[in-house]
Structure formats: C-alpha cells, structure tokens
C-alpha cells in the first residue's frame, strides 16, 4: 500500500507525563485503557475518537502519549483525572507537549533517573515496604506484593521520627 503524502496526514502532538509514585512499573496497554477511559468519561466518545489518544511508551517513570493536534488541552485535563491503572494508585503529571517524540525523549534523558529501592527495605506496623529515596528529602514507601499495595509518602525527617 502506498503511504499517504505527508501533507494529507493528520498532525499529531505528543504529551510527556511523569508517573508518580516514581518506582512504579506501568504496563503501556493498561495505561492506554486508563487514559482512554478518563477521556471518554469526561468528554464522550465523539471527542475521544477525534483525539485518538495512544500511549507511545511508558518506562523509566515517564509516559509519552500521542493525540491529534488541537486536542492536547483536553487530553491534559483527562490525564489529571487518571487516578489509577489496574487498581494501582498513581498520578500523571503533564510535563511538556511537543510535535516530536525525539524532543520528549531528550527531556527524559536529561531528567534524574529513578532511584533503586533500598535493598534492606523497611518494616512498619508488621508490613514490609520498598523505600525509594529521591530528591534531598523525599521517601516513597511501597508495600511489597502484587495487588492492593499500601503506599506511604514521607520525608527523611519523618522516617527518622518513625
């Protein structure tokens, strides 16, 4: 099949979103369903079909999401309303919009990498947590396990007080 000439193709925009909590691994397909569900429940099927959202990648604590040009604002609003993926709580913080994937990947490369969890882990109230330290103070505690993991968001000072 002959590809469509560039002038006849629909223009796309790419949104970069930071996934929090930072240590979370998200399946791109599950993320796509969460974004689509949020967009559809907020603006309806008509807008969703025109926006054509698609998750290009979801790795390293960032997601790149594609949409039709002109729908970036609506998609950004829908992203703020995503509260979880596959029963795992998370938030998507929109960082940038671009016309190319390349520029967003450059941004991701410049951002600080996700820290590895503390190998020793932590035990609070009889539950075992993976501790992710990042920034100068922040500590995210994610309960070890597969489903319904408890999350705690503290600072280094809080941890010392515990």
């Amino acid at each position: 099949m002959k590809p469509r000439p560039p002038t006849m193709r629909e223009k796309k925009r790419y949104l970069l979103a930071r996934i929090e909590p930072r240590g979370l691994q998200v399946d791109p397909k599950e993320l796509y369903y969460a974004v689509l569900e949020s967009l559809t429940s907020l603006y309806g099927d008509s807008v969703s079909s025109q926006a054509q959202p698609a998750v290009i990648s979801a790795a390293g604590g960032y997601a790149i999401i594609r949409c039709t040009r002109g729908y970036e604002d609506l998609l950004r609003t829908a992203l703020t309303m995503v509260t979880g993926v596959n029963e795992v709580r998370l938030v998507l913080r929109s960082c940038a919009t671009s016309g190319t994937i390349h520029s967003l990947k450059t941004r991701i490369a410049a951002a600080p990498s996700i820290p590895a969890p503390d190998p020793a882990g932590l035990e609070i109230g009889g539950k075992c947590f993976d501790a992710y330290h990042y920034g100068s103070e922040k500590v995210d505690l994610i309960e070890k396990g597969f489903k319904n993991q408890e999350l705690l968001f503290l600072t280094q000072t809080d941890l010392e007080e515990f």
Partner: protein
Amino acid sequence: MITTDAAVHPYPAGDSSLRRMASEAHELGFDSIVAIDGQNTEMYGVRVIRGVLISENQLKNVIGQVRRRSGKGDLVIVNAGETAFNRSVIAVKEVGILRHIHKAPKNSFDHVAARLASERGVAIDLDLHPVIHMKGPSRQRVLQKYRDIIRLHTRYRFPLTVSSNAYSVLDMRSPDEMKSICRVFGMSGQDVDDALSAISRLFNPGSAVKVVR
C-alpha cells in the same frame, strides 16, 4: 498572588506526612496549604495554615466546636447542610469557608445564602476530589452543582476557594491542573486565580480591592 490549596488531609487521616505534602505543594507551585488538623507553621517555603473542619447538623454544635477546637490563626471550615443551617452558619463570625455544597440537599445554597456569604466574606469551597475521583452520573451531579455555584458567584461575587481535598500527595494537583479541571464546569481562568488566592484575602480582608481613578 499567593496560591493556596484550601484543604489537604495529612497523616494520620491520609497516607502522606504534612512535611511531604508541603514539599509536594512547593514543587507544584503553591505558596500555602490548609492542612486539616495540622499546625500553623512553614515548611519548604510553604505556609501551612491549620484548618479546623466541622461537620455538624446544628448551629449550636458548630459554635461549640468552634470554641473548643479553633485557635488564633486557624481557618474554620464547615460542611454545608440544609438551607437554614447554611444561612445561619455563614453568619457565624469565626467561619471562614463553607464547603461540600455538592453533598448538601438541592438548592440548599441559594441566592439568599450567596448574598449573605458575599456580605460576610465567607468563602465557598469547590472541592475537586469528587470531580477527579467520581465517574458517570454522580460526577455529572457535582459538575451541575458547581456550575450553579459559579452562576451565583457571577451575580453576588462571594469569595470562592479551590481545594484538592487530598488525602495523599497523589491526590494533589498543581494550580495549572486545577485551572484545567475548573474549566470543565465553566470557571474562567481569572476566577480560578482569584479562588486560589482567596485564602490570603480571608486572612487580610483589608487588602482586598483598591479602586484607583
């Protein structure tokens, strides 16, 4: 402009410590937060205002709670109820914010209460938690109520506040994100800016508006 998230619930009510919430608020671009049952302090360059949340059905109980629980510099927030309750609670001097109007009976916050709120300088809070977390008909009802509040606000110009009502840092949203959410129920960007800075005006009522000719 001092931007404020009008209600967050730190640990133990939520899963994030007050320090972490203040740090997150700083990164998101807030200058202050109202922490329910928190403490009046400053952390990471963010002013933390202690909020006293009162959920009662009768006025005398509200007054009792205000006397027992609130101190100097605290912000008293009351959950809305029936029409008569809302009107009378707005008249209580210590009350700063009336919230959860979306949970109150239909038309319980009417034009009389709106005019009273405007005269007394009591803010009406728009809680974004149900807009973010609810889906379907329940969210539609909330959006409908918020549109009605915006209509009354346009006529009577009572103060509005916007809150994430966050129990976790994952529930907190930046001022820009709040702006885009508020656009969903027809609030203009200027109105959102005014609502985000309303808390500082509640504490300094003298510095509200100056007409320069």
